[in-house]
Every structure is written in C-alpha cells, then in structure tokens.
C-alpha cells in the first residue's frame, strides 16, 4: 500500500521561562492511502501538538514529515484540518463559510462555487446555503465545517477532537455522518481523540501515545467482524470490547 504520510523521528520541545517541556519524543509512523488512523493518549500527551506539526502550523524540534514523498515545511492545501469546534464564522452565510479556504487561497472560480453547491446538496445542506450558522444544528454545523475542509481538496484530513464539543448522542450521530462523508470522498484521515470507544469505532489502526513526553506505546490494528463498517455498527462487533479493554489497560489512567 502507498503511504500518504510518513513521520520520521518527530520530537518536540516547548521552550518556556520555567524551562523546557518535552512534549513528543521520537515519533515514527506511516499512514496509508484511504486509511483511518486514530491517535489516543492521556490528556497532555502531545496529541494535538502532533497534529499541529503534521498540519505544518508548528515546526518540530527535530525530525521531518513526508507527504507523498515531499517534506512538509508549512501549511499546505494538501492537508485539511478540522478543529474541535466547527468555528463557522457567525457573520458569514453557510456558502460563504464553506468557501473560506478558497477565498483565502484566492482561488474562487465559478467551478469552485458549483462544487461547493454540489457538496452542500449531496450532504443535505443546500437549503441552508444562505442561512447563518446559528440557524443550524450542531450536527449540521460540523458537516458544514467538513465541507469547508473538503473544498480545498486535501489529500489527508486531520481531525483534532473533532466531535468532543458535541453532546453524547449528537456525537455518535455526527461521527457516523462524518465517517461516511470521509469514506465517500475517499480521503485519508487522522483523528486525535481521548475517547477510546470513538477511536476503535472509526479507526483501521489506533496509535497509543504515552504520557509526556509522548512516545508511541503501541499500535493496534482494528479488525472487527461486522457486516458493514460504520462507527455505530462497529460498537456492536464482538471484538469491540476486547480492544477497549486492552487499550484502556495500555493507557494506564489513574485518578
């Protein structure tokens, strides 16, 4: 299989007046085309830092990342990033929000607008194109945020706790929804989460990070015997709770 992203001995140290914080140490892994990878770890293990480095927003202290064989040196159109909250701009209509990325990259064309409308139509938001974000439900907002990310046609999607701002029921429905869209668009995705069940339900592989300094503790291949792999179906699979148990033990969380 072709690897889309390769991380080569990524380390990250934050400098502060109180000294140095060793956030990540020697992280190596690859993500293959069409794969869905989840990264879980205890809070403060540097999960989000890792995503920021992959997005090109943050330069690692050492190591490098290859995206389709090319080194990442800054933000790139090839990388889509979804944040915890949808961050739709209240002063823009849904269509204007969805076009934000292209507007910033100065590449709004009539074709791009058509594609935006097409995506909005496919994912059931077309009648909201001229509405403002506060007129949409939490799930619809997250879908609009995903379309905004998809509009720049990224090769890989980074999702930073993308569902954790939603309430539990909405979260289950939205992760099912977003998963289906990502699969339909054939995107490779990396999701950072602290929710073990969410990770198992969506991922082909789950990468477990240790406490700070974050290192890779283990990587689980998730093989579930369920008829059609969707996040909700996955939770029904008999292997689900075994994975849950082992990952839970691996995380070694104490209060």
């Amino acid at each position: 299989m072709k690897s889309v992203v390769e991380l080569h001995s990524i380390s990250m140290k934050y400098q502060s007046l109180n000294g140095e914080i060793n956030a990540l140490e020697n992280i190596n892994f690859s993500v293959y085309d069409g794969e869905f990878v989840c990264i879980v770890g205890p809070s403060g293990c540097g999960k989000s830092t890792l995503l920021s480095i992959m997005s090109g927003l943050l330069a690692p202290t050492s190591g490098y990342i290859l995206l389709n064989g090319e080194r990442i040196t800054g933000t790139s159109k090839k990388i889509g990033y979804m944040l915890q909250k949808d961050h739709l701009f209240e002063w823009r209509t849904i269509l204007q929000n969805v076009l934000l990325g292209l507007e910033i990259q100065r590449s709004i064309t009539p074709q791009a607008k058509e594609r935006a409308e097409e995506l909005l139509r496919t994912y059931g938001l077309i009648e909201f194109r001229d509405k403002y974000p506060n007129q949409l439900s939490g799930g619809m907002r997250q879908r609009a945020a995903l379309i905004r990310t998809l509009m720049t046609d990224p090769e890989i999607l980074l999702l930073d706790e993308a569902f954790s701002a939603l309430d539990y029921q909405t979260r289950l429905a939205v992760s099912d929804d977003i998963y289906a869209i990502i699969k339909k668009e054939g995107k490779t995705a990396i999701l950072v989460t602290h929710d073990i069940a969410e990770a198992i339900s969506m991922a082909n592989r789950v990468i477990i990070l240790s406490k700070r300094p974050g290192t890779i503790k283990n990587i689980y291949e998730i093989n579930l015997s369920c008829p059609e792999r969707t996040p909700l179906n996955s939770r029904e699979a008999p292997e689900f709770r075994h994975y849950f148990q082992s990952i839970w033990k691996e995380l070694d969380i104490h209060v």
Partner: protein
Amino acid sequence: MSEPNSPILKALTRETSISPEHAAFLRKVKKKIMMVRLTQLTILVLAFALWEIFARLKIVDPFITSQPTRIIQTMVSLYREGVLFQHIGITCLETVIGFLLGTALGVMAAITLWWSNFLSEVMEPYLVILNSLPKIALGPVFIVWIGAGPVAIIVMTLAISLIVTILEVLNGFLSVDYEKIKLVQIFGGNKLQILTKVLLPASFPNIINALKVNVGLSWVGVIVGEFLVSKAGLGYLIVYGGQVFKLDLVMTSVVILGTAAAIMYQGVVYLERHILGKNQRGF
C-alpha cells in the same frame, strides 16, 4: 441596547394563528412596554411642569434656576438673532469630526498595536499612563500649541476619546478565539487576511461599543474645548451665560446639548442595528 420591543412587535404582527395563551402573553408583554414608555414620558413632563410651576410660584428663583417657558423664549430669541443654528452647528460639527477621527485613528492604532507585538509591549505603560491621565489637563497645552480655534477643540476631543477607543478595539482583537485565527492560518492565510477575515468582523461588537462610548466622550471633549476657547458653540454659550449670570442661556444650551447628544447616540444604535441586521441576522 435594550430594545426588547422589536421581536415582540414582530411576534404580535405575525399572521399565523396563535393560541389564546400566547396572545394573552404577548398582550401582557406589550402592556408592560407601554407602561414603561408612559412612565418615562410622565417623569419628563412632570419634571418640566414642576420646574415651571415652582418658578412661577417663586418657590425657586427663576433668575437662578431658569424655567421651561424662559428656555423656549431664549431659543426663539437666539433663532431671531440668527445665531441658534450657528452655535448648534459648530458644536455638532466639531463633535462629529472629533468622533469620526477618534474612531478611525483609534481603530488604526489598535490594528498597528496588534500587528506588532513588540510595539504593543513597548507602548503598554504609555497607554496606561495616558489612559489614567485626565486629558482635560492638556487643554491649555493644545490651545498654546495649536491656537484658540476649532482645531484645538477637535484635538481636545481626540485626546479624550482616542486612548479608550484603542484599548477597547485592541481588547476586542485579543479576545477573538485563537482557534478561529488558526483556521485561517491552516488555509494558508497571511496576517492581513487574519485581520480582515476574522479580527475585524469578529470584533465588530467591540468597535460599536467603542463608538457608543466615544459619542459621549466626544461631547465632553468638545464642550471642554469650547469652555477653554470660547468663541462660538453651545459650550461657549454655557460659559458666557454663566459669566454674565444669564442662567436662561445656560439652561437652554444644556437642553439643546442633551437633545443633540441623544440624537447622535441613537444614530450609532441605528447604525449598529442596520449593519447587524444586514450581515449577522440574529447574531
């Protein structure tokens, strides 16, 4: 702004059939609004009526307190002399210029300070001192430097409103959710795009707030300026009236001033609602 009646009016005029309970609720709310308005009006009328009656019955000395009828007479005589609108015009013009300049320069300065973190750290103690300094103390300095005239008055207005505007707008910029900025950066946006796509629209409520504060401060600046320079305008009429003990003139000017300031404030409120109504329905 406290403007609770517009959605209620909308609800009242809604054509769809509403339940009797809802209709009763709306009637109750409408009644309360009317009662508030009525009481407000009553207080105003009562105050002026008592003022007039007490002055007529010589309970208070109208030479010192003036009285509503004498205020009207003064306005008429100023109008007949052809100077009423001249004085109002000069003061309003100075205020509007000071207000617009203060807002524009303040927003620009806030942008500059946001742009350069180094500059903003350097400027911080100066802004704190300038903010706490009573700017009126600088009045005589401006007059000596610039000369007694409208320009000195406008500079006085600027001195009073500028720092507050800078701080308010900068505060708005800094309180914008960092994740929103990150979003623009992820798409490869530069600093100018962060400013135009996120900061300015997101801190629009702060800018409007600064405008509202500035309306009041601009009037203070202009009146103080006119007190010091004293050639024309409402501030001049107040000082002159005080010096020659014509309290009718003083009171008349104060009444006109209050009316003009209220109109200008409402103008900003209208602007706010107009722009908000256009771009951010229900925001």
